[in-house]
């Protein structure tokens, strides 16, 4: 499948509820500096740049890559913006992957960010809906996410308690993530009694709103050693979708996620995800999604998610730890979170995680998503 592509350097900002000291451009520069330093490179070594951000309405600058290009130091370089709702950061990395796999470029810098403090998030998200049909009743993504969760509750046993356990787990993991800004452990009882926002979604099921940027240097094999002895090789990566309102849309299983997983697992030689993955990073816009991902990713049978999280297997120390970074619960700069999942998965197999490191991690799974839960991506990273 073309040339091998690996992650050879990563960087992210210390995410925050609100960064008042830097503009979008400044935020981007911080992440870029860190990624280049991590990769032991300068912008001269970079052949092309991919920028990924959430929808432009989040921060009032249309085609913002054209503005932050200067901050990145990309003067006269190839540069393109890829955008895909919440999955943007990942989709950007996927675009960069092909630029290298094809031989078009050798090293590509992927930059993903969002400065959510700039705008009115729920309203911006509601503009995702068709102005003719649905927008007037839309409640951001929280409304439909909660509704689909309710639809899964009875047939699959995705109870409020099980989702609460996800919140407890991820918030606890976030305590060890130097880049997360929400650092407060909670108990299941606290989650269950937190304010109902869009029941069954409650306040503590919801990730924060964040300003943050992340950057990754992808490299072809021949140049990887200039950056690191242990790149995180991308052995499979895909990003699938489903139409937003197809006949009889399945709410129990995420079909695009299952398709992506099947395709990517085959490319990467994964036949038993539960046993082969050492660590997993998923993007959970609400806790209920993580339960659904366990099933769509084949980490357990349909209906087995509640039991899986309750068993502790997906917690630190378990056999299939999920979101040791804290996932979105620790930091949620939406446009960047897909790339942050790749960063956290990559650093695990590179042996340099700044969160809880899984000893001898060799094989990691990263998942992302966006839109109406109809854009879904999966990647396998191996060292």
């Amino acid at each position: 499948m073309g040339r091998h592509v690996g992650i050879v350097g990563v960087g992210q900002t210390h995410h925050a509820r609100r960064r008042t000291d830097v503009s979008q451009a400044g935020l981007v520069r911080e992440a870029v500096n860190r990624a280049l330093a991590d990769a032991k490179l300068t912008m001269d070594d970079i052949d092309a740049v991919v920028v990924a951000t959430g929808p432009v309405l989040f921060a009032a600058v249309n085609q913002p890559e054209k503005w932050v290009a200067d901050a990145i130091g990309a003067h006269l370089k190839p540069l393109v913006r890829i955008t895909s709702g919440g999955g943007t950061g990942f989709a950007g990395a996927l675009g960069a992957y092909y630029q290298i796999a094809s031989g078009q470029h050798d090293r590509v810098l992927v930059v993903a960010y969002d400065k959510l403090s700039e705008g009115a998030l729920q309203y911006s998200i509601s503009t995702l809906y068709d102005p003719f049909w649905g927008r007037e009743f839309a409640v951001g993504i929280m409304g439909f996410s909660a509704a689909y969760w309710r639809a899964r509750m009875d047939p699959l046993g995705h109870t409020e308690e099980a989702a609460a356990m996800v919140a407890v787990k991820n918030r606890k993991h976030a305590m060890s993530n130097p880049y997360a800004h929400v650092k407060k452990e909670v108990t299941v009882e606290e989650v269950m009694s937190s304010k109902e926002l869009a029941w069954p979604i409650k306040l503590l099921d919801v990730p924060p709103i964040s300003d943050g940027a992340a950057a990754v240097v992808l490299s072809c094999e021949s140049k990887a050693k200039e950056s690191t002895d242990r790149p995180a090789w991308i052995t499979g990566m895909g990003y699938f979708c489903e139409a937003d309102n197809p006949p009889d849309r399945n709410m129990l299983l995420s079909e695009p996620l299952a398709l992506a997983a099947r395709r990517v697992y085959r490319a990467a030689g994964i036949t038993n995800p539960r046993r082969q993955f050492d660590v997993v990073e998923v993007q959970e816009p609400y806790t209920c999604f993580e339960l659904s991902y366990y099933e769509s990713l084949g980490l357990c049978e349909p209906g087995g998610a509640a039991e899986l999280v309750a068993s502790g297997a997906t917690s630190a120390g378990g056999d299939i730890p999920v979101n040791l970074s804290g996932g979105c619960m620790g930091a949620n700069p939406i446009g960047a979170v897909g790339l942050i999942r790749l960063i956290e998965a990559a650093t695990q197999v590179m042996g340099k995680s700044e969160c809880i490191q899984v000893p001898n991690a060799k094989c990691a799974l990263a998942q992302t998503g966006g839109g109406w839960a109809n854009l879904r991506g999966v990647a396998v990273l191996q060292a």
Partner: protein
Amino acid sequence: MKANKVAVVSSAQVELRPRWGGAQHIDLISAVVSSVFKGIGLTLDDVDFIIDSGSDVLDGRSISNCGFLGAMGAHHKEESRVEEDGLWAASYGAVKIASGAADVGLIIAYSKPSESNVNEFYSTQVEPFYQRPVGFEHLAASGIQAQRYLADHALSKEDMAKVVVKRWQDAANNGRVQIDAVPTVEDVLASGDIAKPLTQQMMSRKVDGAVALLLVSEDIARRVSKKPVWITGMGDSIDRHAFSSRASGTLEACERAAAAAYKKAGWTEVKPSVAEVSASSAVTECMVLEALGLAAKGKGAKLAEQNSGTAINLSGGALPADPIMATGLVRLSEAYRQLSTPEIYGLESPTSAVVHGAGGVGMQTHCVFTLEV
């Protein structure tokens, strides 16, 4: 490493109209997607992935690709949105096929500028602290580009008007653009100042439209087409954001993008049979032709008057029809048609093409393809 070859084997486009008042975005998109497969022996089932270009700001909708996936034929396939001129979407599709990851890519680009105030599409692009409040945006950048270009090369507004007329005439002949009347030089000069010295008709006319192309790997190309059009080189480059900080009198990023494409194609001289280039105004069209190496500096307008070797913008180019996010992909579609069915255009036996797309205020970013048959 020998990269896999990529070819264009089909394209489909709706008529480009100032206003498609009777159709939504998805109507235009599903029309081109239905049409692009006809007669070539491939179906939507054969498509591995879709890359699309569109703009949230033009569409009036966040993550607008998300609501159009069905019309794009993307259900249960891989899809990605490039929020940039459509030629970049083709670029993404091409590298994906070249890497061997896929065989058949559907590339789509569309816009309906008629549904919004297009000035805002551009004014929201400039940073909001220094440029936006003082009213500096695409029109101002275009006017200043024109002021400088005309002065640098002792050219007149009439010289620019002649370029406009030629393009509109070609578009009227080509027949894929809705044109009620071809303007005369006098009409162009009298069309009202929009960004002095540019008059309204010297700037590209915004139109609604959608276009779809099929890119395929070499194996598939040889199966489905007697005359695949190969993409032999691609390059893109972005200039500084602040127009006032860019090198004056030249489109540096266009030169850089072209150089990269020509290098990949192994071209030591630039003598394509045809060229399809984008432009924001008659002035920048001339500057683009020069930056691409098709004309000497200051001679772009002369090239418009007499084709010397390379047939330029037989489709009319962007001046009569600029669907913004789709413009570069329409150029690719037109160049593909000229190379694969040259007889329609009165061409002898063209062998190569240069295709150009651009984006941003004052054409900040450029993308160039070389095609060969």
